């Protein structure tokens, strides 16, 4: 069932509703999507599977979003990371940009808005691959 030509996306958010809503919307747009509500599980998964795009919340229990995205970037610098968070401060935004985050979206957001950002990120991923 897995399709190599598809762009792979991992979504990490400890609020199940965010995963449940993003998954079908992204799948319908043609992406291969895996979602996680526990950062430890997501951490394990990125160690075994490369993702083109990672969408993560910043403030979660257990592993912090910043730690997670740092690890993702270490393991696969080509992965584009999109941060979604309800507690956006200038500091966290700055820190994530320094870590090479592709974009930063404040919760709550429109589905169309995140799809647009994901498509831009995909373009960059494709360009880098070419």
């Amino acid at each position: 069932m897995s399709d190599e030509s598809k762009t792979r996306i991992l979504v990490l958010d400890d609020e199940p509703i965010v995963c449940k809503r993003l998954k079908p919307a992204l799948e319908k747009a043609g992406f291969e999507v895996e979602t996680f509500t526990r950062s430890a599980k997501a951490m394990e998964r990125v160690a075994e599977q490369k993702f083109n795009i990672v969408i993560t919340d910043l403030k979660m229990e257990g592993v912090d979003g910043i730690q997670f995205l740092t690890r993702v970037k270490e393991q696969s610098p080509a992965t584009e990371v999109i941060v979604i968070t309800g507690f956006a401060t200038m500091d966290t935004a700055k820190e994530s940009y320094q870590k090479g985050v592709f974009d930063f979206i404040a919760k709550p957001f429109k589905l169309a808005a995140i799809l647009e950002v994901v498509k831009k990120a995909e373009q960059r991923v494709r360009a880098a691959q070419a």
Partner: protein
Amino acid sequence: MNILDRLKSAFKAWRKPRPNYPFAFLFRKFQGVLELNNAILERMAEMGAKLSGDYVFDKHYIEEATEHLGDLVQKLIYELNLLSDQKYIELYSAFQRIQTGIQREVAGERWVPDVPYILPLTAVNRDLSEETGAKSANLGEVKNAMGIAVADGFAITTRAFHDMLEHCKLAPAIDEVSRFIKEVGDDWTETNETRLDELTRQIRARLTAGWVPEPLTGALHRAVYDLTREARKDQLFFAVRSSATGEDSEYTFAGQHESLLNVPSEQLLEAYCQVVASAYTPGAWRYRVSKGFREQEMAMAVCCQVMVPARASGVLYTMDPIAPERDAVLVSAVWGLGGPLVAGAVQGDSYRVDRTAPHVVRTMKVVQKPRMLKVQPGGGVDWETVPEALQHRSCLSTLQLQELVRTALFIERYYKRAQDIEWAFDENARLLLLQTRPLKLPKELRRDLCRIADVVEAASVLISGKGTVVQRGIATGKVFVVRSDDDLLRFPHGAILVTAQTAPRLARVIRKAGGIITDMGSATGHMATVAREFRVPTVVDTGCATRVLHNGDEITLDATENVIYRGLVPELCYFEMSEEEVFEESLEYRLLRRILRMISPLNVLDRYSATFAPSGCRTIHDITRFVHEKAVEELIRLSTAQSRRRSTAAKRLVMGIPLGLLVIDIDGGTTATEGDRELRPEQMTSTPMRAFLEGLREPGLWGTEPVSVDFGSFMSSVTRTFSTASASPEEIGRNLAVVSREYMNLNLRLGYHFNIIDAYVVENINDNYAYFRFLGGVSEFTRRSRRARLIAEILEREGFRVEVRGDLVVGRIKKLNQEAMKTRMKLLGALVAYTRQLDVQLESDDQLSEFVEDFERRSAVLKPINLQERGRQP
């Protein structure tokens, strides 16, 4: 010196009317009320918009938003009480009442104040599934929200169950069993089985021993009495079935709990106890444990329905769980009651029917049915021999099958889930729904759908991204273009309704329609409301539907992405139904919706009604509305009462148009003299107000012709406001302007719409600003009214920074030179005059631009040519 200081110094010249608070202070409080009011309305509109399905939000958002809203309201009440000398202390308790409810919901406590022991099915819906169990909740929703026939009855709630447990002092025994099951783990030896049986038997014995809380007995008698009287019968018989929490939702609990049929009303209490006790059989208990339920979560509500003496009954799956791609509805049926069929004890007739209208019957397998289960006259059920002639006959006619399938698909569309339905046709061939629950589809289906993107890409697009989505969802079927009322009469079930214009008369075929597409029309009208109610996928205002789509065309409407495809793409339907969670059923959606019910409805509209009081405020919107009205009233009262001797008393502005406006001049805003009760426009010297009035009175903008509308009550409210004859200041107090030489603050209420304009205009460019706020009050505020958009568009054209949230429009402009500001004030006047009655005329977005053009033409005379706006005036 900034604006505030200037105002302050202006107010200083004005002598303190009351020893405690100077008027300047009170006026600042009044402005504070307006600001808070605005902030609350914006927040409410923003929260409401989250329900549209466009946004992804989580529980943090709900917590944060409600907390913020609460803070604002608390401040609002405080400010009004300062202004009114603590006249409305009662508002605090009204607010506390609402706030407690909201906080409990947010904290996860289901808050149904005083859940009764018994709820009639007519009062039950999906939101009550914690209290009544999912079975009754689904039946209530189907009956009340969808209008589908369901046998009358009532739910005995979980509260009755909890009281019953307490009454029988069962907690220790239940704990003991829980501990025992935990200790045993997987080690179910015969000894352990026997032990469990013994332990649970004691619990069951206690429950069926007849120790029932007294109030429950009384409530049950009343419920039976009411139903018997309504049915005009001497005695009723009931189907008494378990409706435990968790049952019939994700887990079926199929066959775990007891159901009793045709119970005479006098034995209802015993039947209830028996069903409750069935939750404590070893089988049911271990089922719960295996599914991960905690024992504290278990609560057994019971559903009691008047027994249907069924002629034929059966089961229906809206999809084939083995082969969903066959696009068929599966039906099986037997004579008499359906129980044996459900239990697998007998074989019934089976049918395979097209999911797509006109629901052709593809296969039909009729078996011999020698026996049937029938209700017995004195109560209970028994086997009877099926008359020879019927044994080999199909239980259902084609017409009955189609009626059944249509009803089932209607329910499926509403829940956005394939359904597993139990049904019956009674002796009068009337279809009754007995039970509906989500049908489990195989996991493989979900996997196959990984290719959904390819399927979608391969489909040919007819229309994409045009118009406004009224209701998300997917519809497949044949186009039926409605051009006349005759077409409506001929509208076939399951067709996709295509028409030029939304209209209320379309509402009557909405239940039949698979989807709706229009060329023009409103996303806020009656038809749209009904479409949302039944969750019929609907897109309006595409501009081209009747041109592109023709009678009989097979199409797929994806109202989630707003695309219309050529041909049938059932995969989109399956995809939607296989989504892990239906947005409308998600915890967060339901939570926000429940909370918004305590926030947004407006109940206190009429200031003359007895409920227009703090005690009548049932929502946050009510409080804001009440506070605004009272704040305006207070300001008028203060100025009138404090300054009878002075020129500052409120005066009525007399002009050619009936606006009923009171003016308070705080410093050099008019040339009126002491003792005057009235004021003419020529006496207005306030720079912004004078300009505003000029625009307002411009001939050709204030339409004097009453608009003919079908919205009678709405218009009558407008005209009531305008009738100035014998109106005392108290009565027309809702329209108030506070002015000084360079400042104006205007509160205008036209019908149920509110306008606030606040402006300061002087030589110094940097001090100049104008603030305009419009709020439509009649239509549901989260929906965007065209009038709001028209106003927004005009304001934007004139250089205002505009925000639209639902029916709320806020426009701000600042730092233009004096002449340019005056022009804007004239335009604001013209805008108020022009748009005050437009709602009902604005039927489509196309018209919107026509009206913008029309306004530009009519108001052109107010604008000077080649004006330099930002710099110093030439």
